[in-house]
């Protein structure tokens, strides 16, 4: 769907923001992007829908190189939607509803179609009830959902979110998570950046690690998080679940089963183990 080939990008002061990045995004995936502040995540995202033009290398959209002509850019920006980190700068219309309509109206859709798309997006994200309010009166959690709605209304195939849960309390963060799972489907890829390895491990199928503007790793979540050397080098921690599980496995001496993906899975595993150990202890007593 979207492919970057040897893309480099420099800032005006000469520092390299992206350095020879090659990357292909296909439909239906859940990708978490990790990397320290300044590793190039935002710059990468801005290349994906043509807001920034690579200094070297090229961007392919459905197999054709993007020539940065008006028409093609229009289509690219419809297919690739970016939800920026700060909802305050992203919501710029007097009401949530007008903001959600901004994208569809720009695509030149008929009034009816635009309204329909906006309505669907607002329903999905649960912002219908405050659609006539000015964004500045909403809570942070509501703003974040409104920002997602205004991008979802353009029905993108690739939905990119820059730190969607930053600043949210755990309750709202979980709600956003659920929403992202609903938005992801066979045709739609959801890609997000985060600082939370535990969340990335639990939510994503694939992890992309950026480091000083280059792709350091792009692989399945489990495989990648087993690579201790890689993690240390990128100043990343192993998700605690994997760490605890590894310690416990060493203890029980059993062969590697499937690594648990969530706290619930880990606790169930411990529960089962518990059963076994109890039996072992009983056996020992009987033998004695």
């Amino acid at each position, binding site marked *: 769907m979207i492919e970057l080939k040897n893309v480099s990008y420099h800032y005006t002061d000469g520092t390299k923001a992206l350095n020879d990045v090659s990357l292909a995004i296909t439909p239906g995936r859940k990708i978490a992007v990790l990397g320290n502040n300044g590793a190039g995540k935002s710059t990468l995202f801005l290349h994906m829908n043509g807001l920034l033009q690579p200094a070297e290398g090229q961007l392919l959209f459905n197999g054709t190189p993007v020539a940065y002509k008006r028409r093609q850019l229009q289509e690219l920006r419809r297919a690739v939607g970016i939800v920026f980190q700060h909802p305050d700068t992203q919501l710029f219309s*007097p*009401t949530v509803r007008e903001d959600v309509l901004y994208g569809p109206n720009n695509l030149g859709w008929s009034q009816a179609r635009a309204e329909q798309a906006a309505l669907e997006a607002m329903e999905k994200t649960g912002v219908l009830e405050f659609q006539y309010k*000015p964004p500045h009166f909403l809570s942070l959690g509501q703003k974040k959902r409104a920002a997602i709605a205004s991008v979802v209304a353009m029905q993108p195939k690739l939905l990119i979110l820059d730190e969607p849960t930053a600043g949210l309390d755990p309750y709202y963060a979980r709600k956003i998570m659920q929403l992202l799972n609903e938005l992801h489907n066979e045709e739609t890829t959801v890609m997000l950046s985060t600082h939370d390895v535990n969340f990335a491990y639990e939510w994503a199928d694939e992890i992309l690690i950026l480091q000083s503007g280059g792709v350091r790793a792009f692989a399945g979540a489990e495989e990648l998080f087993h690579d201790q050397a890689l993690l240390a080098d990128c100043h990343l921690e192993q998700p605690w679940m994997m760490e605890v599980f590894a310690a416990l496995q060493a203890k029980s001496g059993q062969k590697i089963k499937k690594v648990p993906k969530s706290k619930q899975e880990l606790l169930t595993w411990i529960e089962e183990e518990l059963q076994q150990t109890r039996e072992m202890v009983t056996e020992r007593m009987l033998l004695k």
Partner: protein
Amino acid sequence: MHIMEGFLPLKWAIFWWVLVLPFLAAGLRSIQKTIKEHPETKMMLGLAGAFTFVLSALKIPSVTGSSSHPTGVGLGTVLFGPLAMTVLGTIVLLFQALLLAHGGITTLGANAFSMAVAGPLITYAVYKGCRKMNIGFTAAVFLAAFLGDLSTYTLTSLQLALAFPAEIGGVLASFMKFAGIFSLTQVSLALCEGILTVIVMNWLLKY
């Protein structure tokens, strides 16, 4: 469009500086009084200055296809009042010279007189006059911003004409030449700035 550094002869550069100082002093005095009563206005005004600067650094799409910078004077005057705009406008001009290399230091007096003194005063007068004559809000804002913008450029033409009178026809002929050339770009720009100011004010009223 500001007069660039080094363009005005020394006596005219000084003349406009001297002319602008009393207005600046009056503006500062009124600000000082406000700050004494409400200390919190200082930060507010500093941020208003930053806002006006950013506004004037935006590119606005012009009807002629080219794009240029708005003065931000119309909106600033409507939002912050003409006296405060004298000071804020001067600060904005200072930073346009320091950060954008736009305008100059010796020509700052002349530029401040057209953009930070005359522009806001005319904008304010037009707006008040229109409201007195029961002209609608939208039309009043548009006219105020449009005429305020236009008067700024007319004054710039006059300043250049005074400094460089034509060999034949003197100041008047020179003024016609400068105003004629500037009007090619500035009339459409003033129109756009008028429309922009109207939409922004309506947006803010809705809010």
